[in-house]
């Protein structure tokens, strides 16, 4: 108790509070703009914290990470332009909501879901770091492969009206994810002699191109067809209701709780990360859709599902970091460098050697969640004004954001041309009924799946029967079979493929 109070006194100093607030502001800015990734912002921010106290430094970096997750939803909802890859899934329902004239409601529910997921995950971190870290240690390559196979079954779940076209798109995403250096032999694969493709198609180019740029090309086509000299066209219907009522909150609450749990699981398991967590959460929530739910047509539950999971990942990814020194995500890995810069070695001894610091960080994380709520609530009033802007003004600026964001990430025009190509490809896919969503799922999960499969085959010496010795893996495989039957049954009964 004494250490808790001392830690709280450190976290609630003016310096630490200003550091948290500064991190939140920077994080929101990074999150909103596509191409300015969270890990890149963290990597740039770490040296800045050199002159700060350890608690202020960690609080600042945690603020950046938390707020970027929440900020990514803003562009996703208003412009179909995810600021972070993990916000790509938020576009599925966020943007349709904005088009229907519910942008402010979507932004509000995204913010509240983000803060809820973040705070609950932080409390789980505070209370259960040690036992959950032990679970993280059990996740080896065989278990990770089974988790990935389970995640891939959701390609069928999210295929939409045409399951076969959805599967083709998902498998195509998996195929294109193999572009780059082979993870085992480091030999080039489908690079066509281009060094820029050695790291594969950049995730930002794929998500920004196929979501934001494709949408702008569609809007431009519609605008050209419907052009009316007398009235100014916007992409969005007029907002008649900006409030989030208690019935709305009660309706989305179970989704928020479930999605937070999924995000916590994705954060604890090293290697999954917020992008997979958000996509998985959306897929699972859609499968649990009830009567009246309108996933992918603009449902608040769709936004809650992704945002709660996305924001629950970071605090949970600190669980294996604090407990056993194993970072659960790229952001957590960068935080390791910040810890070490300030003379703190993450690992099981951290609770014995630096208890005051740990409790101070916990309090700072809770403070960061509250600041995120305040900053987000004030900011969304201004962000929602974007819905009043005519579509012929929006399109050039979104195209600019897409181009500049992709360019800033890799500093090459090659990746920008890739983004443009993916945008056109996404437009062609949508026009002929192929799902961009399933493509992106396959594309995101592909690298993790192949790597863990290879590791699993090496570990088991290509003997599949050894999977029986891994109960966690068997559990996920059983879930996979069950999920596949659940997804296929209604579609086969309708005889619609």
């Amino acid at each position: 108790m004494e250490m808790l109070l001392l830690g709280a006194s450190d976290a609630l100093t003016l310096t630490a509070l200003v550091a948290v607030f500064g991190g939140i502001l920077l994080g929101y800015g990074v999150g909103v703009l596509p191409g300015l990734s969270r890990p890149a912002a963290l990597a740039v921010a770490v040296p800045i914290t050199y002159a700060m106290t350890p608690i202020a430094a960690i609080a600042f970096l945690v603020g950046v990470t938390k707020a970027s997750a929440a900020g990514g939803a803003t562009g996703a909802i208003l412009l179909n332009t995810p600021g972070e890859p993990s916000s790509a899934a938020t576009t599925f329902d966020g943007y349709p909501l904005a088009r229907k004239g519910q942008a402010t409601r979507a932004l509000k529910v995204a913010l509240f879901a983000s803060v809820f997921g973040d705070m609950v995950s932080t409390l789980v971190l505070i209370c259960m770091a040690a036992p959950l870290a032990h679970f993280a240690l059990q996740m080896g390559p065989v278990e990770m492969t089974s988790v990935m196979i389970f995640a891939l079954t959701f390609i069928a779940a999210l295929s939409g009206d045409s399951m076969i076209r959805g599967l083709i798109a998902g498998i195509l995403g998996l195929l294109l994810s193999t572009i780059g250096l082979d993870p085992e032999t480091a030999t080039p694969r489908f690079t066509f002699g281009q060094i820029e493709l050695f790291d594969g198609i950049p995730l930002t180019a794929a998500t920004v191109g196929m979501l934001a740029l494709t949408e702008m090309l569609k809007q431009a086509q519609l605008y050209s067809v419907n052009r009316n000299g007398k009235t100014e066209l916007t992409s969005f219907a007029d907002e008649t209701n900006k409030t989030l009522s208690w019935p709305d909150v009660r309706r989305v609450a179970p989704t928020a709780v479930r999605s937070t749990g999924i995000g916590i699981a994705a954060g604890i398991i090293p290697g999954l990360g917020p992008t997979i967590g958000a996509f998985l959460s959306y897929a699972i929530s859609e499968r649990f859709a009830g009567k009246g739910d309108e996933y992918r047509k603009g449902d608040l539950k769709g936004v809650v599902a992704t945002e709660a999971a996305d924001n629950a990942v970071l605090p949970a990814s600190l669980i294996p970091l604090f407990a056993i020194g194993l970072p659960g995500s790229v952001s957590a890995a960068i935080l390791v460098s910040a810890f070490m810069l300030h003379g703190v070695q993450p690992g099981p001894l951290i609770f014995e050697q630096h208890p005051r610091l740990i409790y101070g960080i916990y309090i700072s994380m809770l403070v960061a969640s509250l600041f995120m709520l305040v900053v987000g609530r004030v900011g969304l009033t201004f962000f929602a004004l974007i819905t009043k802007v005519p579509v012929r003004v929006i399109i050039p600026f979104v195209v600019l954001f897409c181009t500049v964001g992709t360019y800033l990430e890799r500093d090459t025009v090659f990746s920008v041309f890739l983004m443009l190509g993916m945008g056109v490809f996404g437009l062609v896919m949508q026009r002929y009924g192929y799902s961009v969503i399933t493509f992106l799922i396959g594309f995101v999960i592909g690298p993790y799946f192949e790597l863990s499969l290879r590791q699993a085959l090496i570990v088991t010496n290509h003997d599949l029967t050894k999977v029986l010795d891994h109960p966690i893996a068997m559990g996920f495989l059983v879930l996979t079979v069950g999920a596949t039957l659940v997804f296929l049954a209604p579609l086969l009964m309708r005889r619609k493929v």
Partner: protein
Amino acid sequence: MDARSSDGRSRKHFSRDLVEFLIVGGASLLAIFYIIPAQTVSAPTFGLSATMLPMVCAAAIGLLAAVKFVLSILVGSDSAPVGVAGLGTVVAIFASTVIGIVAIDHIGLIAGGTLLVVLTSLAVGMRHPAELVKMAVGGAGLLFLIDWSGL
């Protein structure tokens, strides 16, 4: 609906489904027999060969395309008509983006990005000089902020 219009629509759908099958199936065959062998290097591995996952994916795509085509004949097509109206604007935006990207690479982020905004504005139909100037100034201002922030 008379039989003649029904037959006409069926023939149109069949043509479209056939073309879709030929493109998707053909692409998967091209991948299996040419692209994958040409673009991967055989090397000894402990886990999985470099070609395994791509081959399985390409084969699965080809198989699914064939199944889709057969089902479209047996059960009926679900292909929706695709219009070409407005594609000129799409092409114009594509072209202006290409020019803008080249400009960013040659004359810098701020100047190139501003040119991109102006060209895209022209592509969506803006013609009034005052509007174009406002768009250019807005774009340049945003780019200057991004450049100044150091991110």
